[in-house]
């Protein structure tokens, strides 16, 4: 017999592989075109390294409250509570929050007995640091979280598979997961911004959608004392560079090599 079952299977296999080669190659090579389109951005604030400087000397409790409220209400961040109205720390979603020094800066731990209670319990803002070398981006298996050329570590909710590797990788605890549907917990939906669905990770995005319109991030605008300053580190004349020249600053867990871009004047 000239052409038997074995030959047929061999040819079928080779055909299947060659038909599958193009989509596979596209999948591997496709994303390289993405970087090139960055130059074309009409109406988008162009920058290389967005960063924030927080002047903790000026920041009051009221400022903190206003900043968090502005951020969470603009972005439809759910406020998940337990039946007794306490915050549900198991499922909570927070992009911007405040905690005491020892928690926000454990590497600079002030856990010695001579500290006054006032200093020990002073609140410091914490958020995603949009690191220069983000471990979360390194570990994401689908590039659902990625670093934009303007420095923002962005989330693509459409692609996120909810594996939470980024949450394990973040040394700062900045990321939240939607353990359930967030919509019932959103106090007042902002119709101009989407919500998220269950099963995806979210975090501060440096208000990329506001930057696109030439506006400052919501938290920065909400703090009228100007304690939050936002700008481009690559521009020597920017407000953030100015502050870094004049003041002593610290960052969270700098020894980990992540290069965080949120600076704190203490």
């Amino acid at each position: 017999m000239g052409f038997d079952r074995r030959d047929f299977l061999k040819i079928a296999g080779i055909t299947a592989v060659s038909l599958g080669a193009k989509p596979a190659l596209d999948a591997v090579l496709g994303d390289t075109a993405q970087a090139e389109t960055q130059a074309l951005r009409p109406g988008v604030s162009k920058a290389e390294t967005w960063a924030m400087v927080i002047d903790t000397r000026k920041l009051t409790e009221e400022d903190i409250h206003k900043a968090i409220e502005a951020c969470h209400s603009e972005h439809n961040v759910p406020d998940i509570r337990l039946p007794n109205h306490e915050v549900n720390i198991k499922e909570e979603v927070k992009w911007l929050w405040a905690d005491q020094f020892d928690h926000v800066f454990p590497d600079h731990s002030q856990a010695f007995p001579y500290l006054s209670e006032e200093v020990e319990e002073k609140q410091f803002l914490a958020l995603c640091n949009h690191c220069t070398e983000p471990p979360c981006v390194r570990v994401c298996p689908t590039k659902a979280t990625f670093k934009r050329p303007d420095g923002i570590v962005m989330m693509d909710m459409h692609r996120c598979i909810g594996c939470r590797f980024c949450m394990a990788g973040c040394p700062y605890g900045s990321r939240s997961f939607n353990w359930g549907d967030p919509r019932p917990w959103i106090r007042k939906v902002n119709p101009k911004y989407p919500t998220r669905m269950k099963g995806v990770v979210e975090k501060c995005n440096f208000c990329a959608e506001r930057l696109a319109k030439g506006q400052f991030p919501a938290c920065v605008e909400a703090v009228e004392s100007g304690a939050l300053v936002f700008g481009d580190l690559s521009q020597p004349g920017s407000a953030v560079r100015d502050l870094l020249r004049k003041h002593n600053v610290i960052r969270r867990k700098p020894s980990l090599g992540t290069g965080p871009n949120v600076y704190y004047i203490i």
Partner: protein
Amino acid sequence: MFEKTLTGSRLYFSWLFFLLVMVGIGTLAYLYQYFVGLKATGMSRDVSWALYISQLTFLVGVAASAVMLVLPYYLHNYKAFGRITVLGEFLAVPAVFMCMLFVFVDLGQPMRIMNVFLHPTPNSILFWDATVLNVYMFLNIIIGWTVLECERKAVKPPTWVKVLIYISIPWAVSIHTVTAFLYAGLPGRHMWLTAVMAPRFLASAFAAGPSLLIILGLILRKFTKFDVGQEAIRMLSKIVTYALIINMFLFGMEFFTAFYSNIPGHMHSLVYLFAGIHGHGVLVPWMWVSVSLAFISIILLVIPKTRNNNTVLGITAVMIFVALWIDKGLGLIIGGFIPNPLEQVREYVPTAIEILVTVGIYSLGALILTLLYKVVLSVKAESESGKIMAAH
């Protein structure tokens, strides 16, 4: 050879039925979780990986242990393992399959799982983990099935199978190394940020997996006519002995580094696991049980009289499996997240749904294992009785 799964004893079918019921319950539990979201589990913003991922971690080790049968036989001609390499390979298959199922049930958006392959990301260890696990599973299916088929037809296995077997040996090491890399490269998690993570994973894999093989061998001997061979069991027990000692040694090294250096970040997770922090210590009794079982097992294994007694060995193997399951399946993953990056202690306890899904997946794995082993036993019964007949 599939038809061999359709005939069997009453015990066989009762066992399959029981497993099917458990799989059904697990499926219902998963459906609940799918529609409600992962808040049906005990995971939280701080402990974002828990029971599911820890089972994946443990089972990758069990899967890798097939190499402990394959390497001595194919590289060093250790004849006593010749009859049972296929049992190791057919243990690896459901083990890896369960790993992948555990990843699937842990995902927030499981329907998007193909994104991992549609958008390959070589810098992500999870991408590599998905790849090597899939390849390993297919390697073992193909190798095991082919070798078994050849035995049934009384022919020598073809050369290409030998090539695949030689590949599967370093591949087995790689699957567990890659899984260790998931943890060992994360800068924010001090308990995991250790070079010893991959060696420790491999050591505990080579203790837990062969222990399970010993248990399975003894079960097969009791309930079926198949005897894996006393020498095979003896050699497996020796492998387990050394692997367990190395594992506990490496574990001890972790303690030394953490406590002699006195660096808080390194100590905190171990303190949480073994003593509790601020009154939070739900895992403390588990960890001490695990360590105690491991040390008792080492003693029982080192003494030849107890190691060579099949009953005691069987109990020891169960103790080792449980001890290492606690170590990897509970202590390592959950402990890595506590305290959280802000030095707060937020504990984790699995929910009923989580446990039911886990049991369901284990039952599915046991089901596949039973079916595959049934095929092996039926084929070997035929071929070996054929050999005996031919010898007359």
